[in-house]
């Protein structure tokens, strides 16, 4: 197991950090988060074209760069740090990973190149209004009507679900339950029988939608009834990616809060010279560094295809959920009243921390998953 980044990886991170700092200042984040879609297609296509972000973890044959989870982790960490408004997590992380895990060769050839190029934006619809983050919660059904599949059911909390061109949907055979009878399907965003409703999100930088399928035409993705395993694998990698995105945001919050404390004067001295502030900053550093270690370790474990990846993925997500929110709470507190105002940028990350805390499952859920994955019962 490797515990440092290679110099190439560090160079890649440095390039991304500079790029996102220039292209995604908070003025831009604020402008985009006020739009209904939350991002702009042209800007996104250009940005992706210049950095090849969507293909970082996709093999070359499909137009990708053929790197692995460590590099993907670097991309999402830097995006989380700059709060980049883009459909990256939905399309490149969730949908692309699901396709790579589940699809037949021909389908990969057909679908991946346009996603990698950023010409098409996809998402993954699996959770339903019951809010469960596992296969067991899936009630949407798929029925074959003279050779073509039709979907019925409701998906919710679908990331960028209102804007995506292509939706990868997890559905089940009528009468099946649990891990049985699950299949992936693809549905066009504009398909008949599909109604999309944007949900009002606490975190304006992360757009969610509710998708209602009423006999919506769908194409089978991969093998019929065999989606459970690729879905589980997709969720693991998504949790690892999210954990890395989250520690990026947490580290940015921590650094900005430190800069503020160094600059802000109270009682005739910088507040950074108050012992309680120094101890708080030390505690924040510890919590964020521990969460970073867990996130980096999980990404490396994914690259190495470690046997206990499921446990390490849940460990990383649980650690990131606690650390990001706690750091955000401190970051506001350190600024006092200013930190609670709309014009101060801190709340942008606070709200991202809050939605990330529960997205893909909260810390309690992932701690229990970790224990089970390690066989502790």
């Amino acid at each position, binding site marked *: 197991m490797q515990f440092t980044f290679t110099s190439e990886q560090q160079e890649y991170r440095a390039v991304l950090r500079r790029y996102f700092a220039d292209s995604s200042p908070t003025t831009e984040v604020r402008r985009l988060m006020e739009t209904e879609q939350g991002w702009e297609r042209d800007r996104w296509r250009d940005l992706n074209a210049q950095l090849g972000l969507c293909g970082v973890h996709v093999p070359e044959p499909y137009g990708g760069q053929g790197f692995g989870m460590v590099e993907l982790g670097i991309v999402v960490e830097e995006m989380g740090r700059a709060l980049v408004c883009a459909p990256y997590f939905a399309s490149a992380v969730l949908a692309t990973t699901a396709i790579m895990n589940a699809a037949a060769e021909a389908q990969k050839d057909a679908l991946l190149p346009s996603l990698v190029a950023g010409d098409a934006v996809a998402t993954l619809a699996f959770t339903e209004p019951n809010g469960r983050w596992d296969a067991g919660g899936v009630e949407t059904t798929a029925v074959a009507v003279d050779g073509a599949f039709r979907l019925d059911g409701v998906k919710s909390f679908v990331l960028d679900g209102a804007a995506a061109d292509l939706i990868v949907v997890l559905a089940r055979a009528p009468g099946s339950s649990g891990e049985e009878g699950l299949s992936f399907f693809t549905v066009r965003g504009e398909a008949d029988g599909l109604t999309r409703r944007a949900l009002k999100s606490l975190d304006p930088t992360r757009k969610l939608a509710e998708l209602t399928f009423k006999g919506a035409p769908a194409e089978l993705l991969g093998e019929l009834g065999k989606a459970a395993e690729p879905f589980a694998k997709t969720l693991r990698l998504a949790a690892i990616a999210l954990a890395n995105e989250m520690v990026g945001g947490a580290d940015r919050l921590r650094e900005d809060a430190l800069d503020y404390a160094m600059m802000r004067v109270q009682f005739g001295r910088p507040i950074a010279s108050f012992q309680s502030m120094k101890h708080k900053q030390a505690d924040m550093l510890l919590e964020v560094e521990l969460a970073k270690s867990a996130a980096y370790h999980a990404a490396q474990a994914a690259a190495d295809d470690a046997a206990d990846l499921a446990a390490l993925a849940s460990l990383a997500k649980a650690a990131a959920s606690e650390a990001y929110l706690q750091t955000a709470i401190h970051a506001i507190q350190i600024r006092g009243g200013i930190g609670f105002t709309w014009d101060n940028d801190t709340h942008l990350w*606070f709200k991202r921390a*809050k939605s990330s805390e529960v997205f893909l499952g909260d810390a309690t859920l992932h701690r229990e998953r970790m224990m089970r994955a390690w066989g502790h019962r």
Partner: protein
Amino acid sequence: MSEAATMTAPTEEAVRAEVCAWLDANWDPNLGLVEWRNRLIDAGWGAPTWPKAWHGRDLPPALAAVVDQEIRRVGAVNVARAGVRNLAAQTLLAHGTDAQKAAFLRPSLTGEYSWCQLFSEPGSGSDLAGAMTRAELKGNRWIVNGQKVWTTSAHHADWGLLLARTNWDAQKHQGLSYFLLNMHQPGVEVRPLRQMNGHASFNQVFFTDAEVLPEHLIGELGGGWAVATTTLMHERRGADGTGAAAGREPSAPRQGRIHDEERAEAAVANEPYTWYPQRAGRVDLVLERAKATGKIDDPVVRQEIAKLLILARSAEWTARRARAAQVQGRPQGPEGSLGKLAASHVARAAARVHTLISGADAMLSGADGPEDGIIAEILISVPAVSIAGGTDEIQRNIIAERVLRMPKEPGSSDDRPFRDVPKNVVG
């Protein structure tokens, strides 16, 4: 109330009998609000703890509570005595001249004058004594320039309690003076301050050559900090829930012109506070939410709910211990200063528990969110509890220094002239 008063305090029975008799004879829901309040004030029932000379009866808090009780019982309206209005009155009672008391106390109690507090500034959050708003005497007017922030109700206040710097060569605390500033004048601009939860319950107030009459200086010139500490002491009592909050309790919907007038008054006064219950964490919603979502059956969630309830109940009982001691007239124990810090813990714990209970729904707000958006408002409002009215850090300093008598940090006494003290640059 004065020492003498406590010694000669009448019995509870006597007070109850007297106020009841008076209410029988005088209470009439068809009077005008101001008209009725003037009667209460003339009789001294509106502010029973105040001195006899100034609309009161020198009654101890325990007996004043009896008076308020009876006024509520017969469904009568009480005087306007809540919030900043109370801080203004208490400050005037302690530091005002007779002329100032005569001019401002009665119209405050009748509700004709409403107030706002002009202490905090962008450059000095916790460090109130670091105020940089300047007041300069030009001819027979004080000319005020600068900026205040976190001013509740500034947009409809008639008068402001202003802390301004009148001497830049004195040490920080010595250069301040305390004024009453007329908010209705061209030199005063009030702008709402939007918060991360979308509400704008505070204001920024900008002074550009705003004017203050010489007779509206409270206390000594350069003695403003002493006056301000009186205001702050009463504000903290309010925050601790140990202050007299009688005026604040909402009266049940009743008929009569006077009640309509009172409701209109309350509507304006309470408008900035609609989200305050969410800021406090809405512990009251936790159990019904847990039952509605079925999370009440989850042993892990049950533990977190239990921790929250234990914290909230213990905090409530601690406040009641403090009030009980105060009502007994006994010296208040340490429990009195802990309320605000405890409230921060309760609110944060409540936000955690609400998140645990709501799960994925915690990502949604407004009409899509649980409880029609109330849960989301809790989650993005709670961070204000540990900041507003003195951060948790400041509260801990106060508890350590005033309750536990621990020494100040070295270098905390800064005797440089204020103009030489490092300050924040505010844009």
